[in-house]
């Protein structure tokens, strides 16, 4: 009981020191505001369509109807003349498009009669090459269809073709992708903050002074761990709340964030005990942060991460956050990742406590 109150006293002392330092307190709030600002600044939708201006002398409606169904990836904007299409692509018209198609007035009649006619495709200079090729291929296919020529292959039914959940119209936006990463970043930054706190206690020998009192080494270490975990966890939860991510699967996310806070606290203890001055702490923190950032960066890319990425300590944390917030996975579904994260928490915490204990013992 007495031990508990001593631990509580150290935690309260650290918290008071943190809030009394108005500069750090202000910068912490400012950092949070920046993260929230960045999140809301990012696009919350994914543009999956290619906008095409078309002058097609009477069959625009047909072309539009065929292509504007959901999931076709193309949106047709009709123009009255070839000049208007050209102006739209060159950015001089009222409407601007990156691609324009101009079919001759007798296109359908000519193609039906077997006469070869010319279709003009206008593109902007910075259009990706695959879109240019797609437009020429599309025009050729329209001509084949108008001439009554069948496809050279038989198409499979849509439901046979799509593998996995079809997310057309419901893609994970850049905002959804970055949200988990911002939460991860705020946890990572706490590694540095805790390292700074621990190092300053070592440098100023406050720790020696504290250990002269009835406080035992284990209580001191526990207090530092609790303070570090609380700071990291509370900031991550606050950010998750402010960007509206806690509502998706709150219990799963809270458990993930708590384990994440423990992980970064363990790393902060190692960095804080190892660096002998500010630059030393910075480098130890960076040494941890750079490899730990890899799974976070990998999560921005589509597909599964490389095998070596999955063994990094932050992989379980990033995956659990991403799956909970962006894909709505439940606690049961993210359990394997939480287990990995918990295992790494044990390792980093043990390393952190070991290095800090050793450091304090040498003072």
């Amino acid at each position, binding site marked *: 009981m007495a031990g508990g109150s001593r631990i509580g006293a150290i935690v309260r002392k650290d918290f008071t020191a943190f809030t009394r330092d108005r500069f750090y307190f202000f*910068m912490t709030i*400012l*950092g949070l505001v*920046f993260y929230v600002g960045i999140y809301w600044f990012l696009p919350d939708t994914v543009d*999956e369509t*290619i906008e095409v201006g078309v002058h097609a002398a009477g069959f625009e409606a047909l072309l539009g109807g065929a292509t504007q169904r959901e*999931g*076709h*990836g193309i949106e047709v904007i009709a123009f009255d003349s070839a000049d208007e299409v*050209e102006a739209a692509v060159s*950015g001089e018209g009222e409407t601007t498009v990156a691609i324009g198609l101009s079919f001759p007035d007798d296109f359908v009649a000519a193609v039906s009669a077997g*006469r*070869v*006619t*010319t*279709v*003009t*495709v*206008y593109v*902007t*200079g*910075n259009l990706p090459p*695959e*879109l240019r*090729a*797609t437009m020429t*291929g599309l025009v*050729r296919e329209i*001509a*084949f269809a108008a*001439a009554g*020529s*069948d*496809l*050279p*292959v*038989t198409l*499979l039914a849509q439901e046979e*073709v*799509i*593998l*996995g*959940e079809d*997310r*057309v119209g419901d*893609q*994970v936006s850049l905002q959804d992708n970055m949200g988990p990463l911002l939460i991860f970043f705020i946890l990572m930054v706490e590694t540095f903050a805790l390292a700074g706190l621990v190092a300053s206690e*070592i*440098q*100023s*020998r406050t720790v020696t002074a504290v250990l002269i009192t009835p406080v035992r080494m284990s209580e001191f270490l526990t207090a530092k761990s609790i303070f570090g975990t609380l700071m990291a966890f509370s900031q991550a939860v606050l950010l998750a709340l402010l960007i509206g991510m806690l509502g998706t699967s709150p219990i799963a996310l809270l458990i993930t964030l708590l384990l994440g806070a423990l992980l970064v606290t363990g790393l902060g203890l190692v960095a804080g005990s190892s660096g002998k*001055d*500010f*630059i030393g702490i910075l480098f130890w923190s960076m040494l941890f942060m750079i490899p730990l950032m890899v799974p976070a960066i990998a999560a*921005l*890319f*589509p*597909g*599964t991460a490389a095998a070596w990425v999955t063994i990094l300590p932050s992989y379980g944390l990033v995956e659990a956050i991403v799956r909970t917030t962006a894909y709505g996975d439940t606690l049961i579904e993210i359990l394997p990742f939480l287990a990995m994260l918990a295992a790494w928490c044990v390792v980093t915490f043990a390393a952190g406590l070991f290095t800090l204990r050793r450091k304090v013992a*040498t003072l």
Partner: protein
Amino acid sequence: MSVSNVWQVLRKDLRLGPRSPILLWALVLPIVLTVLIRGVFGGLFESEPRLGIVDLGDSDVTAAALELDGIAVTVYADGDIETLQQDVENNNLDAGLILQPDFDEAVRSGAEPELQLFIGGESLASDRLVIEVASIDLIRGMSGDTPPVTVEVIVLGEAGLDLSLRMLPLVVMYAVAIAGAFVPAMSLVGEKESGTVNAVLVTPTTVHEFMAAKVLFGVVLATLTGVMALLFNSAFGNEPVAVILSILIGALMMAEIGVMLGAWARDANTMFTIFKGGAILIFYPVLFYIWPNLPTWIAQLSPSYYFLQPIFELSVGDRSFADVWVDLAIGLTICVALAPFVYMMGTWLQRRLGTGMVSPAEAKEPGSHKEPAGV
């Protein structure tokens, strides 16, 4: 102000600087950033549709697909259909094409074989369209069907810049800001913390000479890293002298800002926190190069715009000095305008040192050797 005293302090910083890991960080960062941008983030912002092919019969479609421009094609040499489908489902590919042994013959004979093109659920609708049209087009080409139309492509306007070039200002900004502002600021804070600034000021060197040396230290380093960043990106343009002049102005601006912050910050931790939180004010113009459609006037509110824009125009836009001199003149004016503030910060620091309000950290960790003063 004695040039000799300034030189003595600068020489000490240049001599001791290479021992500091932070200097190593400043030198390595532009290289690391370039590699990351070219190798990793470039693909993030401008990703190509990804098509996997399992060819069970040496089809002509496969060879033609490998020639496609703008589509990343992977051929599964072992013919593993299950792996291909798994990769499509896991979003490692946007689509997977399976070509059966007799596919080409079946197409040419008009048998209309099944097109086994599987689409990943998470692929974008636009990527699906690109891959579907490309696949049909390749098969048409192989079948020998003559299209009943001629397609004339007219390109309007200039080609846009590659993303890696649009991110060049970010690399340059990091190179110049870390070496120009952060390193001298940390150096100054380090001198205050270790107490060497007090020792120096016992000599005939004044605090203003001391700060001038720190500014010059930042200018030398930032110019070096800025030039290195551009060389590493092969982006020196047609007028290298004008590019170096632009880097020099940027280096001076950053060094002045860094030294003012270093004079004000009470310790290294505070300095780092300021940089972490406040750097956005000098870094945000780089976003306007990555996304050129954003309104430029917002970027023009930041002082860093007035050296970044000339560097960008000269090194990437193939412009001449005549096109950028106005921005450079504004940048130089900002540097000149900052000089009195640097001087005032020097006076402020001198007053604090004189009144004992700045004192070295009292306790040093036992067993640790004395760090060399400087960075």
